[in-house]
């Protein structure tokens, strides 16, 4: 059955509401201000986003205090946040951590942490990738040790979204049973967290070191399959965010091409520039199809989520980077300056391409999924 990628009137209303909110709270000046703070986002805006708009718990079931919405609503929110380059822990907390909790965690942990995420009070981050830089599950080496009735973690986690400021970390580690999820709260013994200066200023990353750190095991048994789904869901959502950013870059480029005069006419009247813009449009439209498809798959019953998400992540990454890079080129010298916001999108584009594994890795996943 082909997926019906239709949006309802309620969806369009949600889009308009989120866009209006972000225009108010996340204009360029706000982005610059938030990205230069150590936390990396504004707590009041996060609270409003949770309380007024119900976005922090968008995909969290109502029984846990969330909105109980699907990935279709999520894609709308992510696309708009990508456009506005919103500085927030949304990807790490409301998507990645919420999905991990829903897929792997025991009831008590779900009850506590999901409610905290939905209300905007708790920032939860998944600590996944390790210094070896591998995003596939086989790359996770950190071994959890049972000590009496408790567990201890030793090792390091890299590139943890908002890891320096999160209230709780969900650490993926190995037990005798396989891959499992462990909870480590801020302030735990032997836990050190360091903000890493990041390429993408709008998203904060931390290095986490664990030295005999006590942790609670929140899953029961091997979570490999569940974690693969969690990663796919998060990539689908990130792809939607990439589409929003790419669309914005295309708009900025076209706007500039219409108004910038050289040799007596708008540069957009030259085919050299016009065709660049047309190629960007094609890639952005294809990217939108891939991201929407992945999120509609995530929202439904289809079983090809791993393929759909990897495919979307592969293409949306490249489309976003193309749009941001060409946006710089079309703006000429000004595109290269700190003053214009394009470099922020350019950096977000590259960083989000590399996060969760680059396009080549995603294509490898697609190839494995289709059995070639």
């Amino acid at each position: 059955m082909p997926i019906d990628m239709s949006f309802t009137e309620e969806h369009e209303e949600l889009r308009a509401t989120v866009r209006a909110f972000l225009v108010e709270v996340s204009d360029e000046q706000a982005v610059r201000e938030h990205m230069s703070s150590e936390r990396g986002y504004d707590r009041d805006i996060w609270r409003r986003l949770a309380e007024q708009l119900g976005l922090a718990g968008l995909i969290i079931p109502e029984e846990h205090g969330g909105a109980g919405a699907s990935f279709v609503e999520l894609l709308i929110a992510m696309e708009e946040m990508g456009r506005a380059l919103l500085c927030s822990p949304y990807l790490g907390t409301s998507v990645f951590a919420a999905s991990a909790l829903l897929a792997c965690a025991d009831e008590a942990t779900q009850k506590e942490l999901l409610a905290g995420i939905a209300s905007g009070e708790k920032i939860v981050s998944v600590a996944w990738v390790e210094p070896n830089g591998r995003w596939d599950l086989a790359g996770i080496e950190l071994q959890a040790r049972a000590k009496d009735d408790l567990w201890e973690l030793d090792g390091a986690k890299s590139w943890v979204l908002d890891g320096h400021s999160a209230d709780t970390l969900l650490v993926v580690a190995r037990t005798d049973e396989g891959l499992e999820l462990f909870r480590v709260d801020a302030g735990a013994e032997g836990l050190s967290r360091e903000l890493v200066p990041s390429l993408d200023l709008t998203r904060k990353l931390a290095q986490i070191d664990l030295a005999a750190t006590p942790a609670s095991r929140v899953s029961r048994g091997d979570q490999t399959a569940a974690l693969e789904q969690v990663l796919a869901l998060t990539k689908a959502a990130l792809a939607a965010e990439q589409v929003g950013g790419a669309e914005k870059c295309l708009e900025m480029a076209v706007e500039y091409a219409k108004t910038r005069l050289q040799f007596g006419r708008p540069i957009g009247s030259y085919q050299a520039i016009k065709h660049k813009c047309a190629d960007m449009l094609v890639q952005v439209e294809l990217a939108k199809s891939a991201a929407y498809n992945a999120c509609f798959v995530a929202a439904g019953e289809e079983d090809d989520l791993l393929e759909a998400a990897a495919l979307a992540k592969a293409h949306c990454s490249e489309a976003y980077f193309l749009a941001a890079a060409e946006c710089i080129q079309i703006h000429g010298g000004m595109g290269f300056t700190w003053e214009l916001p394009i470099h922020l999108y350019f950096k977000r584009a590259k960083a989000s391409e590399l996060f969760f594994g680059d396009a080549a890795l995603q294509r490898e996943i697609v190839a494995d999924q289709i059995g070639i």
Partner: protein
Amino acid sequence: MAEYNEMSDEVLRERTRALLEEAHPEKCDSVTFRRAQYEHGLAWVHFPEGYGGLGLNPRMNVVVYDEITKHSKVVHHDPGEAIIGIGMGAPVVLTYGTDEMKKRLLPKIFSGEEIWCQLFSEPGAGSDVAGLATSAVRDGDDWILNGQKVWTTLAHISRWGMLIARTDPDVPKHDGLSYFILDMRAPGVEIRPLYQITGEAEFNEVFMTDVRIPNSHMLGKEGQGWRVAITTLMNERVAIGGGGSKKKGGGSAPLIKLWKDRKPGARSAAQEAILRDKVTRCYIENELLRMTSQRARAAQKSGNPGPEGSVSKLAHAESLKRMWEVAMDVMGSDALAFEHGYELRRSTPGIDTPRGLAKYQFLRSRANSIEGGTSEIMRNILGERVLGLPGEPRVDKTVPWKDVPRS
């Protein structure tokens, strides 16, 4: 603009059954059946009564089709060669033709007894069709045609051609064109096959030397040829339709099969990995096109269509070319052979070409980004009509056609 007659599905089904009683597809040939279908107004139900239709909503054509297939194992579909007549000839005759022309031409278009072709492109007028140079000079009740057309599908078996010619070289290019129906058997019309990169000729060149064409065969008024042509071209879009497979993995299936059947041990592991990535890219590109047409359908349904529909021609053409290039790489040195051979011969597209042969497709797909609007023209259209970028300064729009430089 369109107001349709009211008719219930059931009445239309009854009428279809009445047709089947008189002529049944299982018991007569295509021409006989389609003649009767036309007489019953069931050829194209959205055409007016008396012209093969009943003035109904075009959506009701499927009801007729459905009823026929219910009662007959044999279906006399539109004959392949009749596609241009049915898709473009009939609408333009209906819109601009006299009553006499409609009665003379429409039945035989539908029955497939008379094949049509389109004579627009010229050697000097490809992307810039409105710059064409074939001249028509008035002589009494006739016009005298001189010039050459090219890329004419089916010209060699056509009875009629839809032709645009320049009737006034002293006005700007779009204003000096007129639209004619040309009798392809008229003296002075010479048709030659145009052999292409594959060795086949899907197309023709048509040469016209002092060909007489009666003034009554002009469609629309003198100087209005461009407007009439636009009607034809819009119908061409409907006739050709969107590309891309509807099935998951469908578009790239031939490449995937080649990859799975590749010779073992022909490459190093590193080379295999590179090639696998290229194959996967092609699979992804095809999927992106499929998803985009799905999204376009959804957007159309909700009455909110965006640019997703317009990017398809460009994206499709470019990705098809890439796919067949990769197919050649997958075959490796086996692709040095061309088993099909380059025998120079005529062929009818989609009917007798070796479509399954990847090496053939590798050659044929070069035309994807040229025919029906080059990729460069498509980028102009996307840039100007979708993104709203300004056009190039033009040197040909306001000056008399005869003063515009030509190659």
